[in-house]
């Protein structure tokens, strides 16, 4: 098929997006071609704004359009507790559960030797500096409960143990509303290990 050069270029650029094949890209290109000019202007402005205005918060390394970010500026939050997460999207999920008082530290990855990612490739040194600088008393490590997340959590625990700070790990076990019959042995074991008093 031979489309005019601008359409072909648009299709090519859309194909570079994750999960978009040539067929979907063509459909999107023709949608954009037939849509109102005002929408195209708005779309292109928002794309430019994302690149121009979004940066990392100098305190917690969350993505933000103002530095420090809104969470770090919020005086009502407890400054002595920091929740360590892998990505900004994980922080948003925790924030949506309305924990209220937390402040965060975004690592932007996890330790993964199979991919050649070590502690120096993520924001662990910055976490250490921040704990000392801000006098943080508790660090909640909320990385995923998989091999990479657990390795990162243990490493954080190891390098912070000489500081006067409590290090906690988010619990893992049977999900709320789950059925014990369908839970795998590893999760059951974790639930038993992390049981709490009633």
């Amino acid at each position, binding site marked *: 098929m031979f489309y005019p050069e601008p359409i072909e270029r648009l299709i090519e650029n859309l194909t570079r997006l994750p*999960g978009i094949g040539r067929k979907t890209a063509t459909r999107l290109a023709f949608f954009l071609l037939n849509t109102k000019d005002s929408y195209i202007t708005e779309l292109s402005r928002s794309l430019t704004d994302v690149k121009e205005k979004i940066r990392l918060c100098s305190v917690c390394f969350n993505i933000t359009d103002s530095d420090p970010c809104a969470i770090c500026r919020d005086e009502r939050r407890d400054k002595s507790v920091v929740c360590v997460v892998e990505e900004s999207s994980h922080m948003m999920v925790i924030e949506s559960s309305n924990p209220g008082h937390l402040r965060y530290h975004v690592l932007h990855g996890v*330790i993964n*030797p*199979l*991919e*050649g990612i*070590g*502690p120096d490739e993520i924001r662990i040194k910055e976490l250490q500096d921040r704990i000392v600088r801000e006098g943080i008393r508790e660090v909640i490590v909320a990385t995923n409960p*998989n*091999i990479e997340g*657990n*390795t990162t*959590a*243990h*490493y954080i625990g*190891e390098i912070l143990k000489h500081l006067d700070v409590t290090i906690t790990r988010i619990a893992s076990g049977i*999900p709320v509303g*789950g059925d014990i019959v*369908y839970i*795998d*042995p*590893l*999760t059951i074991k974790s639930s038993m290990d992390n049981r709490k008093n009633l």
Partner: protein
Amino acid sequence: MSLHKDEAFVLFKRAYGESDKIIRLFTRTSGKIAAIAKGASKSQKRFMNTLEPFNYIRIEYFEKSGKGMARLENADIIETNSGIEASLQKACTASFFTEFVDRLTKEKEPHEPLFLALKEVLFAVKRHMFSYADILYYQFLMLDMLGYMPNFDSCVYCASTIPNEKKVLFSKERGGILCVNCARFIPHTVCGEGVIPGLMSIINQEKQFANIIFERQAQDIMEGFMSFHLDVEFRSYRLLKSFIL
């Protein structure tokens, strides 16, 4: 399309699309296979916790004869990776040997001794922290199984026996030690006293190292040899190296 049942170690996992995972497995009877696990990122039933690197699992998968990626149907844990995450050094060691097997084997080439060697390494890593001698021992074991073992017995070029001398000449290109005559026209490095006997003692499971200088020399020899013959840069090795020496 036929259903296969096997045991395997998870070598590598990667998220694919919204909810799938692509994994590489080293199976007991079929060697390395790549497989897609549909819905693995969301499924609470079939794959929960099972497709993590270093896990020892029992699998069922469909495979079209000839080509294409296998489709993983079920996976159950035989032994988890639990314990490896307890220290970064353990995670790096397990990663190195997993990557070693992953990068130096071809798909669908069965190699049960190598499977058992990987099993031994991963189980041992959980139990104790590896020294550099331990790492070298398993490295030699796997190199031997894969046909890359360096020759420390006799001159690699003329096969003559080398007298017990203080300094031994090693050629990374030829993959072994050299006699004085052959060393005149073959590029080589001069190994310090006791380095080659030290490496031999590790191969023979005596696993003793004299000192840090000896370890560094042994490391230089192995790095030069592996980089020349395998032509593979192990991503996990850089991190592992920061712990072992």
